[in-house]
């Protein structure tokens, strides 16, 4: 057998859910992967190798071809605009992107500001709404921004809404639903097409069964 297929994934829950899908699709993966500190995990029997990366970086690894495939949230796909194939909706880690702010928020007339981890996506969204806002990029704990007056609204991922509620914020607008996607490098998609098509097909079956 040739080199293993390489799959880039975020650590943690998404990794576990994606691995479970692969098991259901009949890939012989070990029941447990030892130690979470490793960045590269081999599953020799299934001829797969996993690269564990930051969620936002997964499309980068795949675009540059160091990973043949990847599991990336739709949010990172919109934000990063990488040149990769988005072949399958895995329907895992469902959430959505939303605009949130303090209760009783009213549109400010003076240079309204929006804080987000997704500056490109937020810019695009407000442009489509015909609203002129200034975007401030933050790397985490976005909820802080309206509380301390850095911005009057935020654009962020919402799954249960608990983080918003705990910080006294309310959701103002829903932007787009998000799920994790299976993405493929354009060269791997051609050079390793038989193996990739097989993997995609088997995963598609599992995902669609879950759907019904």
């Amino acid at each position, binding site marked *: 057998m040739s080199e293993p297929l390489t799959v880039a994934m975020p650590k943690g829950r998404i990794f576990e859910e994606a691995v479970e899908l692969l098991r259901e699709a009949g890939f012989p993966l070990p029941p447990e992967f030892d130690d979470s500190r490793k960045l590269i995990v081999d599953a020799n029997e299934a001829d797969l190798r996993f690269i564990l990366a930051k969620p936002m970086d997964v499309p980068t690894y795949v675009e540059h071809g*160091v990973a043949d495939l990847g599991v990336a949230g739709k949010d990172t796909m919109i934000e990063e605009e990488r040149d990769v194939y988005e072949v399958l909706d895995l329907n895992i880690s469902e959430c959505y992107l939303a605009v949130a702010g303090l209760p009783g928020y009213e549109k400010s007339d003076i240079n309204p500001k929006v804080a987000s981890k997704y500056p490109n996506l937020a810019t695009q969204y407000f442009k489509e709404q015909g609203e002129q806002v200034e975007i401030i990029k933050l790397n985490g704990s976005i909820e802080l921004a309206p509380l301390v007056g850095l911005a009057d609204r935020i654009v962020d991922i919402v799954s249960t809404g608990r983080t918003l509620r705990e910080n006294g914020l309310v959701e103002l607008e829903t932007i787009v639903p998000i799920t994790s996607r299976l993405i493929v490098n*354009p060269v791997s998609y*051609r*050079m390793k*097409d038989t193996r990739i098509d097989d993997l995609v097909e088997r995963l598609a079956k599992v995902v669609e069964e879950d759907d019904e």
Partner: protein
Amino acid sequence: MSKPFMFEKPVGMRDTLPAYYQTKNKIRQRMKKEIDSWGYVPIETPALEYYDTVGTASAILDQQLFKLLDQQGNTLVLRPDMTAPIARVAASSLKDQAFPLRLSYHSPLFRAQQKEGGRPAEFEQMGVELVGDGTSSADGEVIALMAATLKKAGLQDFQIAIGHIGYVNALLLDVVGSEERADTLRRYLYEKNYVGFKQHVKSLPLSSIDEKRLLGLLQLRGGAEKLNDAQELVQNGDAAQALHDLHQLFDVLEAYGVSEHIKLDLNLVMHMSYYTGVVFEGYGSKLGFPLSSGGRYDELLQKFHRPARATGFGIRLDLLVEAVGETEGLPQQTCILFSKERRKEAIKEAAQLREDGRSVVLQDLQGVENVDELSEAYEEVYYFIGKKQGGSSHE
């Protein structure tokens, strides 16, 4: 921005140092020899063109163009591809030459600067344009030449995916009925977003048969046998024509003996409007980015007022060198080290060796900082040092 350090270059610009130059040059020579041997004549065009002519006619998106202003305030672009300039030349300076024209080029191209590595603002491309020939033989010739050129460059393991935009358009239009709706679906393919394509198809008010036909498009990749599946999905005149083209093309490619490198991929949409027929893209196993691309662009020449059918390809030399992955050593050189008493003798000896085809460095001993280091850098060193007449010490 702060003032650049003196060693800095503008973003996206690269130096070519001697070892890399040797590697690139060797590959370039082999490729050029192959292209020349197929009867394509090289041309050069200026680095700067008008935005309103070549800039807008080019397949490169507006935001990717490297733009500047000239003294009169005209917007200029640094040549983003060679196809549009060649179309300009074919329609003007070469307008009295009968079609078909077979032209080749290798030249630096430019793109808007980007901060991320691996996206140079200047890179070299080598390619051909076959202008004024609409036959499948022409499509096949260009693809076979691209394969031959990649092979000559030293690339062992590569694939070329072939699509046909005429087929995609025919199928989409046949199912959804309007250009506008077809355009939405085409954009999903262009963006490589198959998930979006599937979701959009499911949201359309279509019969389950029509839905299956659209989703079936995504399965149309693999060997030539997929052309039969393609025929099942749509039977109108445009689709039949496109499939006829592809059948012919696969015959041509078989005759050229390159079938092992060819795969059908009818989802390949490389541009929203530029290409008009067969499109193709080349990939090597060692690099994550496509190395080369091309296709039929039958509507470009009329923008320059000499309508003609045309096809061509371009190979990114920077990416190809990475994909080939071998580096050449520097060329073997001889050094003659002399002191000024024997300069004349040394010059004469150098001339003789150069006559014999050697590459000879002639170096005055007084100009050398470290003789040991210098002599180590050369394959052989002749010493013409001291007052001694005749003969030469040789190491």
